[in-house]
């Protein structure tokens, strides 16, 4: 197994294109444990952490550019970013442990294509766009379209996720991400729920995004739950309807981490709670009823 540490995207792509068995890695926090567990070693591992653009986190006008290999800790410790996307920052801060978060990245979390990836529902509800470098230059793809199944992505072999573009949220918008794990850390989501809400001047929901993790082969966006929330004042009935819609949207499996019925039930609970937290964040930031 060879190791390469290119400093440019082109160099990385050339290496990748020249070796059908090579893989790229950012933090390697999934790849190394997978190889220990018996995943065949690739011929070459290409370290993306030496490429500046993949490591930077910056605000460009009204758009955040988050490098695909930037460590989670670069997001959780960035106060301006965490103020715009508290739910996404939280999700990045739930991956592994403190030590893991100095290595783990959004790009790696997405491209590992685990149904339980914590940052993906939070990226999806914030309409994040993945910038992907390939043979014909760069293309922009909604994050929701990158993963096609467990361990599977829509990327060609020689494509690399460079960064994520996240439009700064409008004034009365915020997000939240919750996951259920039996422990308090060092664990994998049994269910994850990301919610983003926008409130109007009266405090009613004018826009909603709901995405669930670990309940289907890929992250699931839940339009029925979003519809239940939009136009509501987040009253108990609307929240219950959103929770029920979230439960219905699940197509989970029974496995060592949870049963089908447990995942369905908890998906609803977390959706309702995450909606409540997102709304509280808007209200706290903008005064009662979300009026600024």
């Amino acid at each position, binding site marked *: 197994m060879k190791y390469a540490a290119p400093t440019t995207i082109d160099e990385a792509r050339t290496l990748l294109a020249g070796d059908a068995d090579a893989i790229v890695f950012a933090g390697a926090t999934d790849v190394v444990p997978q190889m*220990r*567990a018996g995943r065949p070693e690739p011929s070459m591992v290409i370290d993306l952490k030496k490429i500046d653009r993949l490591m930077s986190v910056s605000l460009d006008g009204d758009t955040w550019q988050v490098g695909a290999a930037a460590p989670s800790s670069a997001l959780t410790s960035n106060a301006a970013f965490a103020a715009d996307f508290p739910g996404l920052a939280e999700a990045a801060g739930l991956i592994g442990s403190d030590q893991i978060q100095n290595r783990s990245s959004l790009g790696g979390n997405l491209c590992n294509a685990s149904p339980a990836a914590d940052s993906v529902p939070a990226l999806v509800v914030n309409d994040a766009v993945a910038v992907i470098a390939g043979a014909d230059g760069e293309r922009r793809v909604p994050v929701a379209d990158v993963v096609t199944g467990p361990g599977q992505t829509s990327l060609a072999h020689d494509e690399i996720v460079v960064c994520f573009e996240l439009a700064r949220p409008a004034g009365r918008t915020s997000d939240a991400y919750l996951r*259920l794990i*039996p*422990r*308090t*850390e*060092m*664990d*994998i989501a*049994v269910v994850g729920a990301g919610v983003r809400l926008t409130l109007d001047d009266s405090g009613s929901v004018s826009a909603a995004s709901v995405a669930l993790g670990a309940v289907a082969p890929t992250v699931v966006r839940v339009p029925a739950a979003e519809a239940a929330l939009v136009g509501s004042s987040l009253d108990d009935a609307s929240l219950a309807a959103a929770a029920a819609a979230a439960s219905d949207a699940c197509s989970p499996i029974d496995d*060592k*981490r*949870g*049963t089908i*019925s*447990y995942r369905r*039930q*908890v998906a609803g*609970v977390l959706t309702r709670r995450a909606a409540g937290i997102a709304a509280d964040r808007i209200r706290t930031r903008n005064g009662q009823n979300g009026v600024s």
Partner: protein
Amino acid sequence: MSTTEAAASTGTNGNGASGYRWVGTRPVRHDGLDKVAGKARYAADLNLPGMLYGHILRSPHPHARIVSIDTSAAEAMPGVKAVVTGADFPEAPPKGATRNLMCTVIARDTVLYSGHAVAAVAASTRREAKAAAEAIEVTYELLPHVLNISDAMADDAPVLHDNLFTRGVEPRPTEPSNIAARTVYERGDVEQGFAEADIVIEREFSTQAVHQGYIEPHACVVDCDQEGKAVIWASSQGHFMVRSSTATVLGWDTSRIKVIPAEIGGGFGGKTTIYIEPVAALLSTKAGRPVKIVMSREDVFRATGPAPGAIIKMKVGARNDGTITTAKAWLAYENGAFQGIAAMLGCMCVVSAYTLDHLYVEGFDVVLNRPVNVAYRAPSAPAAAFAMDSVVDEIAERVGMDPIDLRIHNCPSQGDPTPYGPKWPMIGLRECLEAIRDSDHYQSELPEGQGRGVASGFWFNIGEASSATVNLNENGTATVITGSPDIGGSRASMALMAAEELGLDVHLIQPVVGDTEVVGFTDVTEGSRATFATGMAVVEACRDLKEQLRKRAAKTWDCDVEEVEWVDGSAVHGPGEQEPLTLAAITGNAKRTGGPLGATASLNARGAGPAFSVQVADVSVDQETGRVTVERYTTAQDAGTAIHPSYVEGQMQGGVVQGIGWALNEEYIYSDDGNLENPGFLDYRIPVASDLPMIETCIVEVPNPSHPYGVRGVGEVGIVPPLPVMANAVADATGVRISDLPLSPPRVLEALTAAES
């Protein structure tokens, strides 16, 4: 911490040791700096010139006959220096403990669990060894398997051993079965007892197999020479056990083997046996080079441990005044692939925290296609306590009595009969119950929405054989050599007892764990015995030395030895005609008064003091997700005497934490085809630090009259109460009593949902 500070901290906890200068103080452990600095040497840290790496091939099937093993491809692989299979080892006897050990180390004609060792390779690199091991071709004939107690006890169950006939049944069965043994303890007449009871509660409980979860995987380096002698560096709870067990498996004389104890990264009972040393020894013999074997975490989960799962049916009768009169218990414990004594121990423990007029306890040891049990802190007692103390909690609720008061009301005392025969010696259960009753925690108001649970636990503790050598150095320091691996702070405890005896500053004493050729035979560090039994040997050797020191002073002063007293580390002339001679003055002059001073003691420690612990927890339960959060936890435990209170507290807290893990989330998850699905710490969920509150400790000291300082031993009993404590607290918080562990979020939510509908 300076000496003065250490001394000043005497009695901040464990203050029953008043009157001692060193016993009961908290000096920094002698091995502490090396451990925090990463300098301590564990078995996997050792590298020798020319060393090879061993890799063990393990069965992917839970039950199969080995038809053939072809090692020719492996032997031709690059870097391979030796290959061994079961055929290279001596033949195992048809049955018994020796067979079980030999066939656990390497399978012979049959594999009995997924992960069972089948063959091994030594090669120049780890990768070469692994690749070659995977190239060994094993042809299996699959056999039907059983993974749980109910299936294994069924009449039509596939039988693991065709020569296993249930012991303890009359007449002796004519057909083999998976029920290795039946154990019965009885007293009085249970049917009469139930007829006279006002309340009878009958429940069935189950617990899952759990792993000891030590952080350091098993590791060894073995170097065999051309004369057939072997040096083994190994992490274990007893290097004399490693010597004798390795000799047994190889059919060698023990004198061919020297075992050097490496530092140990946790054992909790799981390192009271061997798995890899004989394999490395045979590979080393064949290759003529040293061989290192380090188990992977996956191997540790698939092939070592566990502590058994159990099914326990309890029927308990009580009067309306809270007097528990009668108990009938049926216990079945997993043994793993070979027979053990798990159920027998469970039978002895199940009602030991209570006085009863009538009892009938029946236990079954059951073999099945899982790795063979090995000890885990107070083996078998936690599941038994889970059953009994859950029912006792219901009785307290029914009669409207405080659960601690009810336990005090039914508490055995010295002279009462134990359920298993002998009378109780001096015990501290009542004192532990009172300590919890009077604790800040128990006296505090339970926060809104939380539940509180209490329970008690018993463990025997044991004595066994120990040796110690104490040498006084010419500069007035002392070296204390014992044969007990230090898994919980025992070096510091040995030094403190020696300091107390000799009147020497504890920092002038160097405690050492000696190898099998420098110190006398010493049994495994188990049964909470090291500080008790090995401590006795240290004290005995020190007392011998004090006699020698008095004689040297008498010789120096040319007086009768009866005129010399040993006071605070100096020889004092009774009549007062001489200036006192310090220990350093005597050792500095030793060559002129008869030579170096040293003493050795070897003994069988008698009179181990039974241990009790009583614990209380407050929990909150997320009613919508079933997650249980431990909000507050307090444990009281009778230490006899706390030699080093910090390490006593550490043992108490460690036991509690492991018990909480057992209660809440730990379990082996097997697929239907008999493979372990969670062989790693990601999905085998031991608690992490942020899962827990600070575990508050209350050291109770009811000294053990059989030990010179009153030590009972503290390593194990702390793990016994947490199972029922957590179940009782969850029942209090939710109104729903769950009798199957673990109390994982899905199981709790399922129970809450079922109770609602």
